């Protein structure tokens, strides 16, 4: 795209053609306040707050969020006309606003507050009665709606239409009586509903899980990664008084584009569970770590194939690396089963990066309930289809939410016959002349497909039509565990000793088990019979890294400080290794990362831990002073 030169408040700006004024202003740090505009949604020009004054153009304020830049344009955000126009709009926004900021969860991080301070009139002339609605209204188990605070920017309904392809949220009534409502007042059921909380520029949509937990200024936040599935969405985790109180999205255009699913957003309360395991126990009696680990080592040592190990889906690369060393040494021959592991084999070559789905002209989704398995990939596919005109072929026995696009070609295969359908695809009319890259996303049909067959069929199709493959792993760090060879898929039947890390095996603890060492963060049924119970950390207290399904290594950072006697998993594995007679003496997480990076090519990124602090530019308000 050719570059366009323009001037904003005296600052010279060069941006690609087609950029909107509001975005161009951001590049030089000038704030143009917006409510309805959101850079991931189509501009609509409804809130009218972004009024600026530019020439050449009509002699009245124009919306910066719908106007693309033009060569030689002179934009004035601080002319008397523009300043007054914005102040007028802000005054209008406040006419019916309940001003219950003290009890509003948005208070303190609310654009309406900030903009009113920075762009509004200093005095209020609004008196008399305001509009009232019943409030708060539960939109779902997780989201509360306050219609009085709503400024009707339509971000939530537009997100539902454009991004999530859901039809659950709409506007009812008209004029000043308009309000947001769910269809037929039914609770929202979408897996992507939580994003409307982040989108809402006021306190109209708030989290019920976080409700009144804390004011924003009381929390500290940490840039981390979601540990619920293999996509690896970037998140910000918020802590108050040693409790994880909130998870919000953190935009990373390569992976999540600022969206996270409801599981990633709301499923964290187990971290703060008062009944969490805190001290090791041996046969129900509290003990020291040394005793508990010695007892564990005694029970699992030298068992060979009689030892079963159940691994959690979200073990980090570092923990997997230590486990690899244990499996190479004292625990050699043990049967390993990883939670949530798909049947997809380790990738033979490079796989398709997530962001390249955007550019695909045809997308083939095979054997995956993509909405629930890898939710944010689902949103990426929807974006490619609805915003970039990609064609979509789905091969799955049941209906999926991608069917909501009327042009989706859905081939309903018989269970286990996905590979057959994939082979037939090469002659499909959409793939005859795709006119660009083809993305082939394949899952394992939740175990129903013969994965060797399906993977080779997808590989063959990719070769024929010039496409790229993306295996849709499900377990959080499945790809990292595969690279380290600990992503086991063994049956645990018949083992005599079981080291169960994380939740108990999905099939339950085998009846043949004589010695059970449970390493978990919550007390669960059956742990009273365990020989040893070790308290485990959660994703909120852990350091380490995950390899997501496209192979990107991302770092997990602990928002919550670890409270002794809890110990981090790498430390426990170190000591367990020592108790088993293996020389594991890493003094911290960084030596483990360096060692793992040196020994495993797929984890080379571990050698360089990036700085956790995000770089933010300064915000200027006002004209340049030369």
């Amino acid at each position, binding site marked *: 795209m050719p570059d366009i030169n323009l001037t904003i408040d005296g600052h010279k700006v060069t941006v690609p053609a087609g950029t909107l004024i509001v975005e161009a202003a951001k590049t030089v740090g000038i704030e143009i306040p917006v409510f309805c505009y959101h850079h991931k949604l189509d*501009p609509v*020009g*409804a809130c009218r707050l972004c009024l600026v004054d530019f020439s050449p153009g009509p002699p009245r*304020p124009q919306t910066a969020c719908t106007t693309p830049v033009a060569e030689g344009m002179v934009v004035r955000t601080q002319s008397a006309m523009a300043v007054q126009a914005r102040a007028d709009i802000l*005054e*209008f926004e406040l006419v019916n606003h309940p001003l219950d900021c003290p009890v509003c969860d948005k208070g303190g991080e609310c654009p309406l507050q900030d903009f009113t301070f920075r762009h509004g009139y200093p005095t209020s002339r609004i008196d008399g009665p305001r509009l009232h609605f019943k409030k708060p209204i539960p939109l779902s188990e997780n989201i509360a709606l306050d219609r009085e605070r709503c400024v009707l920017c339509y971000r939530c309904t537009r997100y539902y239409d454009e991004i999530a392809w859901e039809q659950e949220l709409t506007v009812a009534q008209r*004029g*000043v009586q308009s309000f947001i409502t769910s269809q037929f007042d039914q609770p929202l059921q979408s897996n992507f509903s939580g994003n409307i909380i982040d989108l809402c520029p006021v306190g109209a949509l708030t989290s019920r899980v976080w409700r009144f937990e804390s004011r924003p200024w009381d929390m500290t936040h940490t840039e981390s990664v979601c540990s619920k599935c293999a996509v690896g969405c970037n998140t910000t985790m918020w802590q108050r008084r040693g409790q994880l109180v909130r998870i919000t999205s953190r935009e990373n255009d390569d992976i999540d584009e600022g969206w996270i699913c409801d599981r990633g957003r709301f499923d964290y309360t187990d971290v703060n569970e008062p009944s969490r395991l805190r001290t090791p126990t041996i046969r129900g009696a509290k003990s020291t770590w040394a005793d508990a680990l010695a007892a564990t080592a005694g029970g699992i040592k030298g068992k060979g194939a009689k030892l079963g190990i159940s691994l959690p889906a979200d073990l980090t690369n570092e923990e997997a690396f230590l486990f690899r060393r244990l499996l190479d040494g004292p625990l050699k021959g043990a049967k390993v089963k990883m939670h949530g592991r798909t049947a997809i084999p380790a990738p033979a070559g490079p796989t398709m990066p997530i962001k390249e789905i955007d550019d695909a002209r045809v997308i083939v989704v095979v054997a995956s309930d993509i909405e629930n398995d890898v939710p944010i990939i689902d949103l990426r596919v929807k974006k490619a289809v609805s915003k970039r005109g990609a064609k979509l072929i789905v091969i799955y026995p049941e209906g999926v939410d991608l069917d909501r696009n009327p042009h989706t070609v859905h081939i309903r295969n018989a269970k286990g016959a996905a590979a057959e359908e994939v082979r037939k695809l090469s002659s499909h009319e959409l793939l005859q002349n795709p006119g660009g890259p083809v993305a082939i996303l394949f899952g394992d049909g939740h175990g129903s497909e013969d994965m060797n067959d399906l993977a080779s069929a997808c590989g063959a199709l990719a070769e024929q039509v010039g496409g790229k493959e993306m295996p849709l792993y499900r377990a959080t760090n499945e790809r990292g565990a595969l690279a380290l060879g600990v992503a086991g898929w063994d049956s645990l039947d018949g083992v005599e000793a079981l080291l169960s890390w994380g939740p108990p095996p999905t099939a339950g603890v085998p009846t043949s088990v004589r010695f059970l060492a449970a390493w978990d963060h919550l007390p669960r049924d059956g742990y009273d019979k365990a020989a040893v119970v070790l308290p485990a950390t959660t994703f909120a207290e852990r350091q380490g890294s995950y390899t997501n399904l496209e192979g990107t290594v991302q770092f997990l950072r602990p928002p919550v400080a670890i409270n002794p006697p809890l110990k981090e998993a790498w430390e426990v594995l170190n000591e367990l290794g020592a108790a088993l007679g293996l020389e594991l003496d890493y003094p911290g997480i960084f030596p483990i990362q360096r060692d793992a990076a040196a020994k495993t090519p797929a984890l080379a990124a571990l050698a360089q831990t990036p700085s956790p602090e995000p770089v933010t530019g300064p915000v200027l308000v006002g004209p340049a002073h030369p």
Partner: protein
Amino acid sequence: MAEQRGTVGGPVLTEWFAKADLHTLDVYESLGGYSALRKVVTTMTAQQVIDEVKISGLRGRGGADFPTAMKWSFVPKDHPGPKYIVVNADESEPGSAKDRYLMENSPHALIEGAAIASFAIGGHQAWIYIRGEYDLPYEMLRDAIAEAHAKGYLGDHPFGSDHALDVRLYRGHGAYICGEETALLESLEGKRAQPRSRPPFPAVKGAWGLPTAVNNVETLSTVPWIIRHGGAEYASRGTEKAKGTRMVTVSGDVQKPGNYEIEIGVTYRDIIEGLAGGMLSGRDLKVFWPGGSSAKVLPASMIDTSTDLDGLKALGTMGGSGGIIVMDDSHCVVKAAARLLRFYAHESCGKCTPCRVGGNWAVRTYDRILANEGSQLELGILERVSDGLQNGRCLCGLGDAAGWVIESTMRHFHDEYEDHCLRHTCNVGKALAHA
């Protein structure tokens, strides 16, 4: 009730209205109807049609006064796929009933005009979006379209040509905002009637994202006459800048309210005192709306204003949709403005902030003023609201119109506002009581 009066150059729109059963195809055709469409599809090119309309100087009669030929020429000629003409028959402007009068008398003129317009932009399909409450015009248009189809004037081969033409009817959803062109398109698509942000303009991205020209009923009803008599003949009527004739609806405190076709350029005195027979006995003109409730009001002293574009523009108002509302001195302007604001607040779609909130805030302020609770504060709020509604602050013209009502009534009748706000009296009633 409605009657047409001779205009200087002879009537255009109401030329045949004296004829009985004009709404039937036979009568319409016997007078020369559909000869224009026949001429267009058999002998003319699209560009020739646009040129002819350009010569006539025809402007949109829906209120914006945009040159019709220019609007058609904005529709991209090389666009592959469908292009649409959408007829805005959602006449909801308070004080305006001219489109209904035209459709009830001569539905075929509209159908013929819409078909010609479709031909001119290279499209095949015209939609008539008719106001949901217009039952009789709907039925008449429905029957007229069926007649035209039966005769083969519409269809795959109108008059034997290969340029397929079709006109379809769509009943509106019953809101004032549906008459706004982009909201009308949204409504036509089956969505909430809310205006779209422009650009892109409908000529580029209109109904269903395809190039669309939205024209008023009166505009298109004029087109067949222009084709029959030539653009120059039409242009000989009216003034230099504003050519031709137009329909006006006169309502209010006049002797003979009704629809009249006027030659543009006559003064409002000619209309109110001439055509409409003057004020009701014993009353004096106080104020009139020159072009529907959305136009800024003019006080009695400006009755000699010309109906041409420039004369009205100089006063900051417009001919709009031709609805002339006349009020005599027995009425309080503040109460009238409050009533109108209630209408605009009620009809606001709620999409953009100023119109959604501002209209309602003004209504609440007027309520306080009329309840004798006003003060300088209320006057200030009205000024600010009217400021905040105008000049591009809103997404569409509805907000501006609401702002104009406040601004123009306050400008011309500030003393009445002060009486209400500061002295808590209404002198209008008193003056009458003394008289």
